[in-house]
């Protein structure tokens, strides 16, 4: 069932300039990371672009399940993690 599948994964979203720089808007990965930091380390392995935009980015903004989060935030199956640059609304 779709729900069971989804529960074993984390859903990752990229917004604004991140989406353009990384060339993708979203993806699903196995839920095998305890924290956002671990997930970022894994993504950094993909190449310089990923490392620069996310891992090394001091202005990286993170949301987990639609709440502002940090690199220390814990992850579990079914979580939605979003990475984005500083917001510019209003």
């Amino acid at each position, binding site marked *: 069932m779709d729900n069971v599948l989804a529960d074993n994964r984390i859903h990752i979203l990229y917004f604004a300039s991140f989406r353009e720089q990384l060339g993708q808007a979203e993806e699903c990965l196995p839920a095998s990371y305890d924290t956002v930091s671990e997930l970022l380390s894994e993504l950094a392995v993909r190449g310089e672009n990923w490392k620069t935009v996310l891992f090394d980015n001091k202005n990286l903004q993170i949301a987990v399940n639609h709440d*502002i989060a940090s690199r220390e935030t814990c992850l579990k199956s079914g979580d939605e993690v979003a990475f984005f640059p500083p917001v510019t609304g209003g």
Partner: protein
Amino acid sequence: MNHREHQSELPFVKVQQADFDLTAEITQLRQGHKNIGAVVSFVGTVRDINEGDDVSILELEHYPNMTEKALEKIRLEAHQRWSLEASLIIHRIGKLHPTDQIVLVAVASQHRESAFHAAHFIMDFLKTNAPFWKKETLPNGEVRWVDSRVSDAEAKQRWDI
């Protein structure tokens, strides 16, 4: 918090493409609250210049499932900090042009002091905590993401005292 707050899903937070009418929104916000003495509204508009360049189009992207939740959180925080009768946040998304309205924050209270502070607080937090991103198109066709302003991060700090 009065009864109307629970009538529908986040009736005091709206994320929409459509423009809004200030008078109509304020009139609706005040409905049923006879003890309001002060209404402070903030309207953000598209300027025709950013960082020295003319701007032709401003496009607003957001994080659909998070946006309304983030705005409602800011709104409720304002209601906890000040004695307010009602408040409303409207934020537009999609393509906008110079002089277009982008955002409305309206706060109604018995006395002016709390309405002024709460409206200012909501705008300062919206600027740093609500997931919107602006992309601007210059007259020569160049497209660029708008940089966040250091002054916005600083403005927010002020309220943490």
